[in-house]
């Protein structure tokens, strides 16, 4: 069994919303998951990891605004919020961030923000080479899925990347799909008699 990229993106949007993101940022989370999966990367898993981490009341997110205006603040940034802020801001964005949660989720936004050439996103000893439509890395999955890290962005000497596009989310992701489904379920209204009778407008007899 595998999943289409489209249904996976829809699920990711609902999951991100269910975990408390605004609708706009949730849409970007959906984009990020699809972009990662299309590049053969664990997009479903990293979003599930991030949403679980974010769901823990002890973990606090700092608004991305601080990364641009008070970079010395002791903060952990949401990778979706920071990624969209970098992409929105064009060339005016900083290139170092002290602490980013699940930084793999930054990659899609930096990739799309790379109008030409190749850039490098790095943390610890992990390096990801990014272009507009994809990325390559030799890093182990374990380091790609790191919970938080200081990140740097730099131009690469490479001019282009050759990357393979994946059209399905493989069966191996089933467990993480199920984790996203749990978050997504928070966006569904509980069943009630009134809702069942009047909400869809079919009334008592929808037959003919």
């Amino acid at each position, binding site marked *: 069994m595998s999943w*289409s990229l489209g249904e996976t993106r829809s699920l990711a949007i609902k999951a991100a919303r269910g975990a408390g993101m605004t609708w*706009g940022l949730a*849409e970007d989370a959906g984009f990020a998951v699809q972009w990662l999966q299309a590049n053969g990367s664990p997009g479903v898993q990293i979003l599930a990891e991030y949403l679980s981490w974010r769901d823990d009341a002890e973990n606090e997110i700092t*608004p991305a605004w601080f990364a641009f205006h008070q970079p010395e603040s002791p903060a952990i940034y949401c990778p979706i919020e920071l990624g969209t*802020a970098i992409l929105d801001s064009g060339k005016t964005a900083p290139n170092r961030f002290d602490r980013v949660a699940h930084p793999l989720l930054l990659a899609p936004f930096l990739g799309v923000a790379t109008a030409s050439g190749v850039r490098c996103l790095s943390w610890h000893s992990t390096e990801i080479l990014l272009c507009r439509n994809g990325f390559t890395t030799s890093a182990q999955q374990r380091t790609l899925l790191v919970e938080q890290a200081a990140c740097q962005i730099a131009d690469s000497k490479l001019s282009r990347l050759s990357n393979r596009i994946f059209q399905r989310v493989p069966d191996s992701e089933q467990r993480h799909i199920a984790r996203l489904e749990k978050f997504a379920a928070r966006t569904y*209204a509980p069943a009630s008699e009134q809702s069942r009778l009047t909400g869809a407008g*079919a009334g008592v007899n929808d037959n003919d």
Partner: protein
Amino acid sequence: MPTNLASSEPQDIALRAPSEVMRLKRMGSFHQSRLSFMRVLLRRLKHQGWRFDRPVWRIDHRGVGVATYRAIGPERVYTLIAFAHDLPAEQRSDRVIAEAWDATFTLFDGEPSEDDIVRLSQNVPLQEAGRISASELVLSRANRSVRLFEYVIDCLARGLQPATEMVDPIGYLMRTTAVYGSGKFGAADRDTWAERPEFLGSFQPELLSVWLIRSFTLDLVEHLAQARAPETAVLMSPGIRRRLGVGNSTGLGMAPFLLTHPSLIHAWVNARETALARVRSIQTAAPDKSILFRNLVARAAINARNWTSEHPHQSPKIAGLREDLARLSNHLEDHPLEGSQPWNELYLWAANTLSLEGQEQLVSLMLEPHGEQIDDLADTMSADESGSFHINGTLPAGILKAWLREAYGWALTTDFESDDAIARVWYVSEEKLEPRLGERFEEPLEAYEQPLAPARDAAAMLRSLQEWDDSETIAAFLMKHPEHRHAVRRAQLVAQKPYAEIRDNTIAAEMLPIDLLRCKLSFFGATKFDPRSDRWVRITMFQGAPFPEELADSDPDDLAYPPEKPL
């Protein structure tokens, strides 16, 4: 404000303004036209010389089993796999929350092996609870018409033809209750097949499925009649067969689609409006086209006479349409299509004289004789929503404010503090994820609200934006106000694609979801729009259209309106 309302080709008449077209009352009066997707599909299949057959028919005397219908094109083959079931009557429901159906279907990309059929037999009958794969393009199901299915079998088994008085008002033996495509439940993503020449435009695999389902429903009643009374049973006469299409029962699931696919809606409406502007701009009416048009007006009147609805919203609209068509016919007697830009003159007369239902019927009829001038627009009726996804954050706040005032000026005067303006909540129920609409002040639903109120959200965004200097960037604004991100994304898109936005409040107390449904269904090519409530509708698809075995020798466009003389 950048718009693409001006066509790239020289023409005198401008496109109608979004503020005129994208109102719910007008959208809820759209009619099928030759740009509708069913019409496009049949024209294309005929033009490309597709052939059709039925390789598998393993249906028993109770109507249970599997059948396949194959469409063979110049480059590819598609196969509809139909699973027929014995459904207890008490389980028959058209709602999303149903868990069993009379028949279930999938459209296979190619020719399925026996292993494929076995795999699909374990999943397709479960619909949303099953899984299909990248080899399948569509997942669908249908229920029998309680009013007609058994009656038709009974007639045929006794050697009789069903009465047209019974057949015509219903118009179908089965109605589909969902037709899923584009990656849903594991199906192939749209990206993987959208560039195939046979599928250019919108919803082509889905409508190919429905058209083949129509054949299945006819084959099934003839098979059951034969099984019931082999000595006396007869086949249905071609004239009666043609009167039967496929029904569709549609709830709220379709309504949010128009709001969540803004680029696509722009592409659809822009094509239709461009077609209208081209016809209005024609300098003189060719005699053969005038004759055909008048013939079509008469046939549209027959169609309106056959169209019935008991719904208090639709019934008077149909009565008004009948009057409008009589008025149009009389007008053409006194004002034949002569002089300069006669189609434009006719349109302007209608805009001042007819109801919205009549005006939009006229638009569809005016397009009908002008295939050579407008049919190329069908290939423009698709869109990649991801193309306009990313926000241009370098945009100054002042520009966005100006765009908002232009595109959402109508919304900025609405008092979104009043209960009536925000009376409704779009939400998804945990019951099989059925889309629903609730009352904000009567049910605890607000926490589950879907983002389907662009007018309210744009107005809220502008309120926040007013506190920002015009020279500040949208990127800076969104860092402080991530709650407006979805509204900014939409406003940027609407600035480029003005038909993308509905110019009405979609959560107002008086909003009728059936207006949204009607708009979408008209682009599909549906007819006999018959609301069952303000948010639930039955329609007919492919009624009057040729069957696969008839396509090569018929003109599908000539069958879009009933013949002047019955078959």
